[in-house]
Every structure is written in C-alpha cells, then in structure tokens.
C-alpha cells in the first residue's frame, strides 16, 4: 500500500450553508511530508478533520490506508491518524500529563501494561518524562505542545497531522519541534502539516498542497512556492530565500526555494566572481 490518504471529489458544507470544501482531489503517498497551505478560511482545518473521521464526507470519499472514512470505520481511522491541534489547551485536558498521554491508548482498549509501556515510551521520546505528574497549567506552552504530541504518539498512528505546529512557539521550541518531525519522518510516518509558514514549508516538505476557497489550487513539489504569481493569488508569499535572490538577481524564474538551494547558488556565485 503506497497511498496514505486519498481524497476524491470531497465537498463539505457547514450547517449554516457555508461551503467549506469543494470538489477536492489529492493523494498523499505513504511516508511523505506534506504541507497543506492556504489563506485563513481556505478550508485547511476542515479538510484535516476529515482525515481523522471527526467530519465525515458529505460528498466524495476520503480513504486512509485504503479504509474509507465513514461512521462504521471512524474508530479504526482514529487509531491510524493522529491529530495534533493548534492550541495544546484544547488537546491536553486531563489533570496530569501521564493521564493525558494515556487517554488515547486507554480508549483504544489496550491492556494496562501496554498503556503503561506506550505512555512511558512517548514521554521518553518527547523528553517530558520528568513532567509526568505535572498539571497542564503548570507547563509552558512548548511543554504543553510536547504533551499533546506525546498523547498522539502513544496511539502509534501511521499518519500524524499537525495543525499550525509552529504557532506561538519560540525559536528554541520551533527547533525542537523540527527535530521531533524529523524523527517521525525517519520512522517512516506520514506527516501532514497545515501551516502559513512558507519558509518552513519550503525547507521541510516533499509535497505542497495549496488550498484556495475550499478547493485545491495547486499540488506539487516545494518549487510551487517560488512561483510569485501563484503564491500571491493563493494569499501566500514566496520564501525569504526566493525573494532575496529574486531581488538580487532581478529575475523571476530558476530561483532557489530552500535554504540549501540558496546556499549552493550563493557559493556558485561567489566562486564565479572569484574566477574573474
């Protein structure tokens, strides 16, 4: 099975009649890092909630590892797909860290021993074992974020979704989160991140899906983000590296998108300059 998530012709209307998603088609290959981008209200969060069966398709289909997301399968799907919500205060609701991380495994019906093992492992991986007896209000924002991720990780999902993971984190917290994402990717997990952060997207993702007004506006590699016209139309902006080289070189095509591409181009330019 090479496909993690397959969305076909998905549409969704809210109860007040607002059209949130319209004829969405796209595929997420297994083990890939996918970034979901778009302006506020583009439908990112609504789409993410479909992957976990919290919202069920009103039209079209969503398949998770070949299993259609439906009322009958929602619990199975929730064990395969974990969501880390934007605000950890929404997610970390138990009276202490241990109980919160154990919440998902208990709901999965695992044995006591297995729950204990999974919680211990998740706390260890996220480096928050010393916080196991702390109440959520005693934690910093970054620590709460780690607890939220540990709670999802303890369910051992194949696919992990992050909604604006970098929001409100300080640079150290962002760096630490990047490491966590990197480790998950190395373990072969499929990662989907909804974000506005184009620089993060450019440097991290394998695939970029841009939503606009509830539909897929563009789907491809990170080079999409170098297209000034496309990103402007989608309500986004180019990565800083791309903008910098566009300004310096005075051109709009063949621009670097990632930090490494920028570094290579800069080196090449310096070498060229030295040889003259």
């Amino acid at each position, binding site marked *: 099975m090479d496909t993690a998530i397959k969305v076909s012709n998905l549409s969704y209307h809210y109860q007040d009649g607002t059209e949130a998603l319209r004829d969405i088609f796209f595929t997420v290959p297994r083990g890939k890092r996918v970034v979901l981008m778009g302006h506020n209200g583009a439908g990112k969060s609504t789409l993410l*909630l479909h992957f*976990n*069966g*919290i919202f069920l398709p009103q039209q079209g289909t969503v398949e998770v590892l070949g299993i259609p997301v439906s009322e009958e399968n929602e*619990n199975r799907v*929730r*064990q395969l797909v*974990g*969501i880390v*919500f934007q*605000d950890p*205060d*929404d*997610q970390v*609701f*138990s*009276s*202490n860290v241990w*109980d919160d991380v*154990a*919440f*998902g495994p*208990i*709901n*999965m*019906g695992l044995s*006591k021993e297995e*729950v*204990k093992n999974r919680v211990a492992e998740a706390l260890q991986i996220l480096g928050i074992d010393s916080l196991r*007896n702390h*109440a*959520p*209000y*005693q934690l910093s924002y970054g620590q709460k974020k780690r607890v939220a991720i540990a*709670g*999802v990780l303890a*369910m051992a999902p194949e696919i992990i979704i992050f909604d604006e993971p970098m929001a409100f984190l300080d640079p150290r917290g962002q760096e630490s989160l990047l490491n966590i994402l990197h480790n998950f990717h190395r373990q072969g997990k499929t990662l989907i991140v909804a974000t506005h952060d184009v620089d993060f997207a450019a440097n991290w993702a394998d695939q970029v899906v841009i939503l606009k007004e509830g539909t897929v506006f563009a789907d491809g590699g990170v080079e999409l983000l170098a297209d000034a016209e496309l990103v402007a139309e989608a309500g986004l902006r180019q990565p800083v590296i791309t903008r910098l080289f566009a300004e310096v070189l005075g051109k709009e095509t063949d621009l670097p998108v990632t930090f490494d591409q920028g570094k290579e181009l800069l080196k090449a330019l310096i070498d060229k300059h030295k040889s003259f």
Partner: protein
Amino acid sequence: MPCGRENYSKKKNFIHNLDARVKLITCMLSIVLLVNIYSAKVLTVAVAVILFSLLAARVSLKTIVGRAAITLFFIGGILLFLPFTHGKTTWVISLAGIALPVSLEGLVLAGTLALRTLSAILLMVFLTETTTRAELLSAIKQLPVPPVFSQLIDFTWRYFMVIKSELQRMQRAQKARGYVMKAYFNLQTLKIVSQTIGAMFMRSYSRAERVHWAMLSRAYGARDWTYKMHNNRARIEDYVWGISFLAIVLILLMWDKGGSQWIQLLK
C-alpha cells in the same frame, strides 16, 4: 499542590501523607455522622477535635478562618433570621422603634446549625488543605464513583484555569487600551462587564467544541474512559488513622444520643 491554598504543600507531614482515598472516605462519613448531632456542647467538642487536627496538619489559622468565613457567609442569612422566626418568643427587643420578638429556641437552633455547618466546612478544609488536587482526583477515580462524576470535576478544574487565564488576558487587553473601572455601578462598567461575560461564553463554547474534537480524535467514545491505572495500596497507618478518627466521631454521636445514660443503665 493542595486543592485549597497552595502554601502548605511544602509542609508535608503524617496527615499530608495519608492515603487520599482513606482521607476522603473518613471525611465524608464523618460529615454524615456529624450532621446528625443535635447538642451544641457535643458539636463544640467536634469542632475542637477537627480544629486540633487541622492545626496538627500545620494548616494556618488564617487559612482556616478565611475559608470557613467564606462558606459561612452564604448561610449567614438563614442563621440570622432563625432567632426571630423560629419558636416561642422569649424576649422582645426594640430596634429603631420596631419591636422584634426573639426566641431562645431559635437562638439555640441557629447556634447548632452554625456549629454543624462549621464542622462540615472544617472537615472539607482539612481534606482539601492536606491533599493535592491530583491525589484527590485520583482517589475519586479509584473509588466506585461513576466516571462521569470524576470527569466532570476534572474538566471543571482544568478549564477553570484556562478560562481564568483567558479572562486575565482580556482584562489586560482592556487595560492596555486605557480602560479603568471608575465605578462598579455605571452604564460604562455594566456594558464592559456584560461584553466581557458574553465574549467569555462564546469563547468557552468554541473551546468546548475544539476540546470535544480533540477527544474524538483520540478515539474517545470507543469505550469507557477510565483511569484506574494507578492502584496503590493503602498502608496500615492510613487505616488506623481513618478508623481512629471515625471512632472519635462515633463516640461524639453516641454521647449526643445519650450514650452516657446507656452505660449507667448497663451498670
């Protein structure tokens, strides 16, 4: 961190270290027994015993008085009216030209009620000041209490803190834009306060929706949410303390019900 004031958690002693389940059951049973005592004299002794336990647990007198006063304030109205509304008139006092009939029976009843309430409140202060919130919640979860009850307590406390910090942020934002509450009762204040309350309700509603989604996303509803994961055994000294405390309360109850006469009758 104790459920009540936080300052005493560092002053851990024998009473703080008692098993929370034993403390909870002992305090609850004691309250049930104490509210069946009618003699003011016996109730005074009961209050003294609990006060002694509180002081032995190193809970400061200031904390005890503060927390008891807040709760007693709410039943103060009933207690205040009883001498004037209950029983036969014993005295008539004149207040600003108005003759008020006062009954001794009403006075005694008010005093007894006050002592009963005080003993129950002091027992709750004892429980919450010597037990951390986590210990108490864990104790409730380990006892045969319906899960919905423990979840309700859990969520109330957890989101009380979140809503409190949201309210503080809103107040800070108001102050940052120059808002100063000049008087409690004017149109401007009422408008701001009602808007703040309205915004809090709306935020709480959307927060509740998001929390529910977060719970669903971690398979909530697939089975009973139970936390009976930590099952520490109570120690001998926990049981000894619980039985001894209940024995004292039982002796007081027997004294109230004429226990001394039963002993004389047995002789």
